């Protein structure tokens, strides 16, 4: 590779960095002020691109290409303001992360709405007039439009810096980013501030999308891929830091460009395909940055938020609850006989139970331990792959492999947990995501061992378990046992220590509790239980592929926990059952099932901001008049 080639590749990286920065800057601003983890940000980006396509298509002849293109920005800003004012504003006071659930529902709705409006085919826009060609640069042809993008990134950074430093509004935004309570004390009209920030952030996402019109087609998969990248950039840069986001976008884009430029490295008789690292390059960068700098490149340690929604002390189950648990268990255990005429019921029930156990394991670290994991599918996947590989490659009997599944997952959790517990909040969550993506990437690439993207087939249960009814009983025992075990741990000294560590790490350390070790073990336990779910899943399906540890599954688990209510012990079980069942039923009832599912989740979020079980519990307390009661 010649130096000029490297130089041009670095320029390519700059152009990508600018594109990335537009999306990430908006996300960072929104997070900084509202603390919302906005999954829908990528959907706004995607909408920006689609909208720009249509605007340019219809109006560029009348008002010119650029005005038509740029109009997409303000239109998206308006949409963002509406979403904030009509939807998100209603759930600010819900427990942490519930807003995330609302934005997840928005993703589903926007995706189907886009499909409905613009159709399924990719839409490639026209080239930018005047910038459609290339200029000669170091003996190569370099797109003129990329030069514009390269310039736009720093321009946006400058404008945002001016806005944040030189205006009253900017001062308020900065104050709110540093300390929400302080902003409240400043007498800010908080509602207005939130709406305006959300609108600005969304507008930037929309603009970012619109600016891609001359470079790539509008397609329906842009929402999730762009929001993933944007989150990585925001976290690597340091939450709420706009210059940090710029730096991170630069770093990640240049690393990718260099990976591509290096192609395949030859040495020591080996060929190392560096370009394939682009699969998970951003997550590798993020993992390295977070391990070295727990608050990102330019972030500050967050002022420890004492704003946590209050959780009531645990109450041991009374005779009523215990009796109803036994009744539910017995009812479930007799399901194969009750549903003899409808064998699909047991098939679906196996999936529901696996989902419930998986969600319970996520809740275990998310709720009581207060460690938000966005990559919980990694352990589910490690359990599934561990079991499958032991059967297929090591020739173990299926029963033994199933028992070993949680060990494989727990080992993974032990490795990641050691790094993760040193972080907190969203940084921790994103490190877990990075780990999951890296594990996913390895599984995806390692054809010879894990079957690569195709996965592994022939992972069927032993003969005596082949019957779905019997397998259901096995799953039920494992899921009930797992859930009961987790519950038991929560009532043990260790469970108390987990909650204590979440409530006050300072106090814990001052009474001799090693918080990091408690949290580490919590990771391992949660990972192990997720591994049981993964093993059960593998043998119930007969085949697995890398999507068992993909982001989608991690997000599903989050949704289940939040839907049921993160502050209740049975919430995740109920959330998992409702979500999986809804998905199964809704998917069969209409073509636009995603929008319907999103709509249902939105309604649930608005109706039950404490989660469904949280809502029930509060209702029961109201009736019994027990304001200080416990979490069941």
């Amino acid at each position: 590779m010649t130096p000029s080639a490297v130089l041009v590749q670095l320029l390519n990286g700059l152009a990508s960095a600018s594109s990335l920065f537009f999306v990430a800057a908006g996300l960072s601003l929104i997070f900084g002020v509202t603390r919302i983890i906005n999954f829908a940000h990528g959907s706004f980006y995607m909408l920006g691109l689609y909208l720009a396509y249509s605007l340019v298509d219809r109006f560029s002849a009348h008002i010119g290409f650029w005005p038509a293109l740029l109009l997409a920005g303000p239109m998206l800003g308006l949409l963002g303001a509406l979403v904030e004012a009509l939807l998100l504003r209603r759930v600010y006071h819900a427990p942490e992360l519930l807003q995330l659930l609302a934005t997840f529902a928005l993703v589903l709705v926007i995706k189907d709405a886009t499909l409905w409006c613009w159709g399924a085919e990719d839409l490639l826009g026209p080239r930018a007039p005047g910038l459609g060609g290339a200029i000669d640069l170091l003996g190569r042809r370099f797109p003129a439009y990329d030069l514009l993008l390269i310039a736009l990134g720093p321009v946006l950074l400058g404008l945002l810096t001016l806005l944040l430093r030189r205006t009253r509004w900017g001062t308020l935004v900065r104050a709110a980013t540093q300390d929400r309570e302080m902003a409240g004390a400043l007498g800010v009209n908080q509602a207005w501030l939130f709406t305006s920030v959300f609108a600005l952030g969304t507008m930037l996402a929309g603009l970012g999308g619109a600016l891609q019109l001359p470079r790539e087609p509008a397609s329906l998969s842009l929402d999730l891929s762009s929001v993933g990248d944007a989150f990585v950039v925001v976290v690597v840069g340091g939450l709420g830091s706009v210059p940090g986001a710029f730096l991170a976008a630069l770093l990640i884009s240049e690393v990718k460009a260099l990976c591509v430029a290096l192609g395949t490295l030859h040495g020591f008789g080996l060929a190392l395909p560096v370009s394939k690292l682009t699969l998970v390059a951003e997550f590798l960068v993020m993992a390295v940055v977070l391990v070295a700098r727990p608050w990102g490149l330019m972030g500050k340690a967050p002022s420890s938020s004492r704003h946590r929604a209050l959780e009531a002390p645990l109450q041991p189950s009374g005779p009523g609850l215990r009796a109803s648990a036994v009744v539910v268990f017995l009812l479930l255990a007799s399901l194969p006989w009750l549903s003899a005429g409808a064998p699909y019921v047991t098939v679906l029930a196996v999936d529901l139970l696996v989902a419930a156990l998986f969600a319970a394991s996520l809740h275990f670290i998310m709720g009581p331990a207060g460690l938000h994991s966005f990559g919980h599918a990694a352990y589910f996947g490690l359990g599934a792959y561990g079991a499958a590989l032991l059967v297929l490659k090591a020739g173990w009997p299926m029963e033994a492999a199933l028992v070993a599944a949680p060990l494989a997952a727990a080992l993974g959790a032990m490795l990641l947990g050691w790094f993760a517990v040193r972080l907190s909040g969203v940084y921790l969550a994103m490190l877990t995501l990075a780990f999951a993506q890296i594990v996913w990437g390895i599984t995806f690439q390692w054809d010879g061992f894990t079957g690569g993207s195709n996965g592994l087939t022939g992972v069927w249960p032993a003969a005596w378990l082949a019957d779905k009814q019997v397998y259901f009983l096995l799953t039920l025992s494992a899921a009930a046992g797992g859930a009961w075990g987790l519950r038991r741990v929560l009532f043990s000294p260790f469970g108390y220590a987990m909650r204590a560590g979440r409530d006050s790490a300072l106090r814990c350390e001052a009474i001799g509790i090693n918080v990091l070790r408690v949290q580490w073990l919590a990771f391992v336990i949660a990972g192990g239980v997720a591994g049981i779910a993964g093993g059960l899943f593998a043998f119930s399906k007969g085949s697995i592929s890398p999507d068992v540890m993909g982001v989608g599954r991690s997000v599903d688990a989050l949704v289940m926990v939040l839907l049921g209510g993160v502050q209740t012990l049975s919430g995740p079980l109920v959330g998992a059952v409702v979500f999986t069942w809804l998905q199964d039923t809704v998917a069969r009832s209409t073509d636009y099932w995603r929008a319907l599912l999103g709509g249902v989740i939105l309604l649930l979020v608005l109706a039950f901001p404490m989660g469904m079980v949280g809502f029930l519990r509060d209702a029961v307390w109201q009736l019994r008049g027990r304001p200080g009661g416990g979490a069941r």
Partner: protein
Amino acid sequence: MTALLQVRGLQRRFGGNLAVDGIDFHIDQGELLAMIGPNGAGKSTTFNLLNGQLRADGGTAWLGGRDLIGLRPREIWKQGVGRTFQIAETFASLSVVENVQMALLSAAGRVFDLWRAARDFQREQALGLLRDVGMQGQAERPCSVLAYGDVKRLELAIALANRPRLLLMDEPTAGMASAERHELMVLTRRLVAERGMAVLFTEHSMDVVFAHADRVIVLARGRLIATGRPAEIREHPAVQEAYFGTGLSFEKRRGAPQ
């Protein structure tokens, strides 16, 4: 008689700011030592150095043959040092008695017990500690609904759980009414006597200090500027200057020559 705690040359800087600037002092067993000084004098920083939450830049703090400097908070706790925080740190989602039980569990080395229920662990002892601080009536309430003064008392009970030799109390009476403050200090005095421990506390209310401390040390801008019995400190010119210099005063300091 050798001192229980012997601090020498303790130092800590934040950037260019010497928050604690080479201070020396000691505490004897059975003593109630007050550390006073204006806001930002370095009191909490000293506490954080002694309990291991902050790393010292220099100095030693010998407690019965062991230097605390360089140890982690939980190791210092094992050495028999309990503490309360300026802003009380308790476990909001546990009940009052569970807060104390948590400390007892830790003292018994049972934190990593995953199976037996924690609920009944040394409940009587926990209730006893709560009785000691006058909180037995609220044992079953969620910690999150307590009045602030009660939270501070609960914190004291937690800190007492492993029978410390030395108790560090950072503004134990902040946020309390005057009568309540004296009550708490009387209680502290009784605990000191019963348990044969020593207490180092900071306090902004001079009333409390002069009424209850055996000895007083005064910090200003990270330096130890005076030490002595309350009566001596009251008349100490450097102390008066330090307080008047900041505009903050010995509140309710009656009879000062001025």
